[in-house]
């Protein structure tokens, strides 16, 4: 049975189609491309502009949410993450929407209370059809609340096994992890091989897929890889020929580097291997990239400072999704020129701290540790997150513990009580599960703050990001749905000329226009006259800073 998968099908039907498929399916990972190569700045209207072609292209799913995108939506784009999902759903009604979730850390950096996790998943699952769930330590218990809630909603659960390289990362280890997951979830899931840093050779991936299938022959496998080293096409060919049914890809129009490899390259290559991309319309795929080539110019200021593949990632292992933010930090911090040193240090730190997976929030811990080590001396300024990691607050380290000298430096850092590291570890170590919050009380507080009833979506945003959630809700009340504006207006530099007109459509398809009539400056106040939908307005803006 070779059929395109659509939202009209039940989870059971979809899994059945995948199990029987001779060919393979594609997931367009817009979210990871945006995060890895454009600092998560792709705006919803870009998604809308390309949506007709992506919808026609016949993807298994499009990942439009999760990871760091949820926080960046609120912080940098003033887009409601739920609104973003609704926009995508309206624009692509037949295509499954996908999100990546960091287990107990959800879309954040630290573990959330159990009831916050469950409420969040319930709200997002109203729109997210496919849940790619991982834990950076592959600690399955950290993922269980998300697994349970996703399965309750009837959406597709895609538990992920984070992949890396090194002597500990054997096929046997991963096979056992898959079994551990399946023991919790049952067989009606899709297991994802999460190769977020783009590691390993095609041969290595082929071996892994075969090992998993040998042990669990009926399991559906998905492959997610970053193309940092430029070789993810090779790994995907190996994965699909070994039996993987879904691969994460990018539009070639976005020309991703740290994100996913181009869909069309994979399709053209695998054809030669006798493998067909099921349901994919190549013409639509090409048209989508034609649109995106134009869109890409809007986001040029957000592209990474390092452009081009980096095969040395095999050593420092940083996830593609963290590339944008880390390089940005280095640039803003004035130590971009020390990047080769820092990446070398990152390779060392990776091994010293346990050779686990460099993905959020672990990637941030490794990165911060490497930077601090280079700038201030090795482990001289350990972060709180590194301390929590060594204390086991995120879960047990999978392979080995850091050497004693590291534990000593980290755990005894700035301790006024003079306690030794092993004492600290004994007294404070272990996974700490945050206590449930009183959701009714939190809602009441929020309602008091805004003097209006708040939706569960608003509450969830607030619980996930108390500060940025509030800031966003205030922005939304004052400025409305600014995502309706063309992205080139949102990122506008240089203001507007008098007589310039901004046109856009609202959610109901009604056209609107705002024309700038005049701009007059009086001290720190700027008075702007506008024609808003053909009616004259004046606005005065007091410049700050």
């Amino acid at each position: 049975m070779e059929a395109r998968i659509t939202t009209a099908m039940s989870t059971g039907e979809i899994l059945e189609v995948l199990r029987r498929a001779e060919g393979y399916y594609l997931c367009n990972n817009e979210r990871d491309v945006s995060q890895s190569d454009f600092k998560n700045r792709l705006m919803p209207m870009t998604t809308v502009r390309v949506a007709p072609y992506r919808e026609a292209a016949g993807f298994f799913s499009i990942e439009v949410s999760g990871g760091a995108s949820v926080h960046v939506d609120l912080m940098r784009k003033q887009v409601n993450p739920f609104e973003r999902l609704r926009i995508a759903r309206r624009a692509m009604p037949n295509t499954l929407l996908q999100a990546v979730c960091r287990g107990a850390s959800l879309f954040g950096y630290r573990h959330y209370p159990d009831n916050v996790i469950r409420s969040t998943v319930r709200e997002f699952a109203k729109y997210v059809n496919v849940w790619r769930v991982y834990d950076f330590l592959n600690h399955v218990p950290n993922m269980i609340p998300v697994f349970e809630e996703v399965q309750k909603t009837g959406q597709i659960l895609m538990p992920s096994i984070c992949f890396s390289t090194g002597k500990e990362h054997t096929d046997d280890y991963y096979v056992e992890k898959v079994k551990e997951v399946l023991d919790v979830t049952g067989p009606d899931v899709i297991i994802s091989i999460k190769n977020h840093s783009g590691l390993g050779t095609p041969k290595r991936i082929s071996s892994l897929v075969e090992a998993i299938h040998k042990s669990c022959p009926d399991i559906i496998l998905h492959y997610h890889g970053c193309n940092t080293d430029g070789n993810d096409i090779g790994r995907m060919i190996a994965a699909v020929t070994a039996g993987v049914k879904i691969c994460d890809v990018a539009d070639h129009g976005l020309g991703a580097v740290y994100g996913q490899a181009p869909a069309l390259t994979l399709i053209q290559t695998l054809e030669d291997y006798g493998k067909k991309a099921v349901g994919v319309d190549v013409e639509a795929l090409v048209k989508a990239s034609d649109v995106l080539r134009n869109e890409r110019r809007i986001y040029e200021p957000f592209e990474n400072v390092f452009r081009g593949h980096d095969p040395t990632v095999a050593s420092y292992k940083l996830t593609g999704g963290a590339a944008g933010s880390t390089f940005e930090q280095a640039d803003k911090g004035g130590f971009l020129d020390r990047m080769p040193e820092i990446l070398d240090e990152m390779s060392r730190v990776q091994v010293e701290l346990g050779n686990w997976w460099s993905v959020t929030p672990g990637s941030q811990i490794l990165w911060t540790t490497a930077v601090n080590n280079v700038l201030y001396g090795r482990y001289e300024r350990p972060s709180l997150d590194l301390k929590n990691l060594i204390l086991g607050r995120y879960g047990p380290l999978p392979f080995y513990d850091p050497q004693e000298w590291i534990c000593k430096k980290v755990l005894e850092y700035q301790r006024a009580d003079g306690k030794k590291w092993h004492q600290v570890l004994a007294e404070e170590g272990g996974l700490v599960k945050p206590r449930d919050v009183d959701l009714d009380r939190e809602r009441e507080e929020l309602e008091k703050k805004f003097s209006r009833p708040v939706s569960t979506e608003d509450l969830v945003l607030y619980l996930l990001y108390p500060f940025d959630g509030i800031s966003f809700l205030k922005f939304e009340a004052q400025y409305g749905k600014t995502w309706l504006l063309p992205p080139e207006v949102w990122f506008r530099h240089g203001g507007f000329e008098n007589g310039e007109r901004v046109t856009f459509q609202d959610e109901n398809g009604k056209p609107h226009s705002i024309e700038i009539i005049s701009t007059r400056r009086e001290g720190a106040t700027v008075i702007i006259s506008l024609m808003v939908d053909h009616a004259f307005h004046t606005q005065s803006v007091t410049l700050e800073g």
Partner: protein
Amino acid sequence: MEQQLMFEKILVANRGEIAVRIMRSAQELDIKTVAIYEETDKDAFHITQGEEAICVGPGPRKDYLNIDGIIEAARKTGAQAIHPGYGFLAENPDFSKACTDAGLVFIGPPPEVISNLGSKVIARQIAIDAGIPVIPATDNLSSEGQGEEEALAFAAENGYPIMIKAVSGGGGRGIRRVEDKKGLLDGIKRSRSEAMMSFGNDAVYLEKCIRRPQHVEVQILADHQGNVVHLGTRNCSIQRRHQKLIEMAPAGLKKEFADRLCTSAVKVTKAANYLSAGTVEFLVGAEGEFYFLEVNTRIQVEHTVTEMVTGIDLVREQLLIALGEPISFTQQQVVERGYAIELRINAEDPKNNFLASPGKIQVYQGPGGHGVRLDGAIYQGYEIPRYYDSMLVKLTVYGYTWQEAVDRLARALKGFVILGVKTTIPYFQQILHEPDFIQMKFDTSYIDTHPHLVEYLEEEREMEKIARLIAEISAYGFNPHAQ
């Protein structure tokens, strides 16, 4: 036989929507119109609607109330008649008399009629003599201690609550409800003091309070030939502090009962030797009893609902009557069809105790379409002066059924775009979705018994919010929220 016109030009001694309304009917009769204005009102819309305009003084308000000044304005402009509209001098018998004395036609009742009906005590006696039930009440209370004794005796006979009313009051002013002896004695003192300040006359009387009544009124026309016709009922029960908020026609009474009210209204009008357009007001009790309340000797704000259901132009009839013409139709020709509802869109903040919200109308767009009538006097860019009433526009809708009228009203309210000031629109939108209103279950306590109606969210239009961001990008040269 063709009637000789007694006037070809009228001066409209008013402002705002009613001035525009009067001018429209006059212009349809090819009568020229003169607008008056105070300096403080020089941007008012009505000024642009008359063929001529004349400033009557610096204002505010006092020159619209200056009888001599207005008579002089009529003389200067050659107007031969004056229409007073409502409010200001409309029910001042001295104004009617001054017009007559100056050889001008006063488009309204003669001074003695205004005077008699303006006195609640005389008006009440006229009703009693005509056999119309009246609310048990005292005569004007005597002064000082004797007045208190009279009040206590009345309370002993009729019980509480009791209404204290100023003899010269109107429009909801000078009325106080008291629940007990202490409230009664204190209230009399306060009412006297307020009445003296407001009306220059401290006379008050007491009236039995009818609990949760409906406020029903009958529109009347009377001509020089002695014809009196009624144009059916209106229900004005939805009031806030005795100020009407929503009015509708017909009143929603059973036909036989409505006929009794209308017949009573005609009787009172005839007994008062009435002339021109007027309104006879009644209170209708929960048990179906009714009481004469008063006669308003003017065209009323809510006259539009009667016009919508009867198709009759009341101001045109006023003008024709003033010209000596008989009423254009007979009682039998008056037919009420469907329902009409009128709302006053005021520049007020319902959430802030309906406090006036003066300011500049940044954007104004009104609704239209079948069964929607707007009587307004605002325009985009108009700075609402703080000296006058806060009414922006009157919305009247017609529906073949009550539900159709309610639905149309909701649709029409949605069609308004008024930016720059707070308005009563969101409050009315709440009422239109309130079950008691939809089922026509209301009396004069409606607003007090539905306090939750002010609990609405003030939603700014999406485009205004987005325009704010465009302005910021323009001012900064970049988007300060996209960094």
